[in-house]
């Protein structure tokens, strides 16, 4: 070899070379902030003595913080309702697209996917204007229908209204993930099912749904992560409903406001770490249950 090095060894270095730039970005964007968050969470800014090492004191404070628990319960409720509704709609739409019995399927595929391109801020602004009393769309639709509709931004409805915004944004995205997974189901499976005389619904039940299993698990994990991290939509809607959407409405809003309104950086970092751990535990649980249920 020209370099006097065994060829395989040279390839090894090439492999590392391809990965190195990503690893640098990965370190800056993820590893370093994560390490710094853990470091910060072990300290506390005190009136006497300044920045002091306090061990896990911030964590024990977080675990007994009623505001954190309230916000966590809120996103948990959100997650339990919104994620199944959204994924169910996406699944039905993907099966319809794949059924070959839908006219103008490309129009529906692209059209339903389109909201994914809209920034969460703009989505929240649009829905917020439609919800809001100033523009009165909900009120005028209510009077058109002859019924009094509740204020979508009032206490008991606001979580559902946020859920609607998130569902609107991501149903098409999940639909496309499921649809892509359906397109690569081996044709032999369909042929075998047809030889066995399976009905269209039988094909859905026995072939399509089992083939979608990994895609459903992945979509569920990403949706769960998204719900636990809820920030942009409620933060944006806060302009319209500042009393219902408090600064501690979700864990992420809480962490954000601790840092920027309260300058409590150390405690905020501890909450970020706690939320990261909670998210990873729940994501792992979703993955495990997905594996077990379908196995």
């Amino acid at each position: 070899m020209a370099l006097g090095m065994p060829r395989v060894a040279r390839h090894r270095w090439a492999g590392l070379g391809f990965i190195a730039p990503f690893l640098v970005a990965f370190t800056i964007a993820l590893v370093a902030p994560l390490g710094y968050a853990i470091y910060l969470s072990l300290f506390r800014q005190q009136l006497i003595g300044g920045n002091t090492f306090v061990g896990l004191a911030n964590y024990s404070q977080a675990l007994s913080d009623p505001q954190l628990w309230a916000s966590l319960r809120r996103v948990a409720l959100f997650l339990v309702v919104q994620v199944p509704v959204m994924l169910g709609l996406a699944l039905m739409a993907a099966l319809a697209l794949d059924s070959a019995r839908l006219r103008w399927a490309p129009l529906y595929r692209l059209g339903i996917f389109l909201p994914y391109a809209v920034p969460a801020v703009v989505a929240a602004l649009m829905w917020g204007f439609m919800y809001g009393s100033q523009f009165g769309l909900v009120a005028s639709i209510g009077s058109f229908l002859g019924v009094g509709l509740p204020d979508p931004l009032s206490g008991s409805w606001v979580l559902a209204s946020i859920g609607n915004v998130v569902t609107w944004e991501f149903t098409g995205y999940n639909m496309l993930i499921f649809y892509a997974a359906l397109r690569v189901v081996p044709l032999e499976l369909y042929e075998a099912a047809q030889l066995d005389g399976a009905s269209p619904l039988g094909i859905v039940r026995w072939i399509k749904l089992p083939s979608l299993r990994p895609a459903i698990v992945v979509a569920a994990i990403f949706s769960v992560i998204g719900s636990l991290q809820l920030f942009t939509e409620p933060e944006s809607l806060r302009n319209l409903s500042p009393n219902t959407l408090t600064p501690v409405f979700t864990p992420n809003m809480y962490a954000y406001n601790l840092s920027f309104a309260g300058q409590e950086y150390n405690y905020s970092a501890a909450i970020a770490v706690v939320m990261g751990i909670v998210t990873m535990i729940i994501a792992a649980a979703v993955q495990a249950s997905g594996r077990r249920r379908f196995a």
Partner: protein
Amino acid sequence: MTARTRVGRHSVTLGVLMTVMLAYAWLPLFWLVVNSAKTQASLFSTFGLWFGGRFALWSNIHQALTYDGGIYVRWLGNTLLYTVAGAGGATFLATLAGYGLAKYDFRGKRVIATLVLGAVAVPATALAVPTFLLFSQLHLANTPWSVILPSLASPFGLYLIWVYAADAVPSELIEAARIDGAGEVRTFFTISLRLLGPGVVTVLLFTVVATWNNYFLPLIMLSDPKWYPLTVGLNEWNAQAVTVGGQTIFNLVITGSLLAIIPVMIAFLIMQRYWRSGLAAGSVKQ
């Protein structure tokens, strides 16, 4: 004929159901278009889902682009910068690394793979506050770097390319290029990259959407409005109405929102053709 290719009767029920979903998806967009054409006064006085009052689209656009010394145009430019540098860079790095993982064997590969895949589950937003604190220490906060650098790592993109490259680039082809004396880098750029095309476009689609729509990170990082992207700027305009003494400019928020989503939608429509060919390639392979 198979279940997939048979052209059966078209189902009316399915058509109706999907039309309802399409209407739901388009309702807010329709609202946005209709209301971009209204004056501030008509926004409050006319029915929200139809045109009303003077047709003010052009004057709204003009006003949005020139308000406050043309700050909107500046935000648009910032967003473009963050998207081109952030999404372009992230896609490039993910493509290189995914290809490296799929086609090369080296020590530490398993560790790196596990680490990166674990990171897919790490919630990026949970890291936003620590990232800000770290970047403040490095005096990078409130600069374009503070938005671009954290967008450069896309573990999910790497994963997609890794899976895609395993099948799309035959190892024999790389071996043949080696025998012909081509270096690894040259092989990548002249042969492999072309085969990776649809996978790369898919990753680009996701990263473009993620960076164009990014809100939390720039909100935290940037304090100077001249570095804001559109998302942060628009929300600031919207909040202006509820702050004491703030000027109400809902018509500009609405028109500005419309202008902000048009470029992503165009990019979408262009890219989805390639994306679809990527999907089709995947299904033909079976």
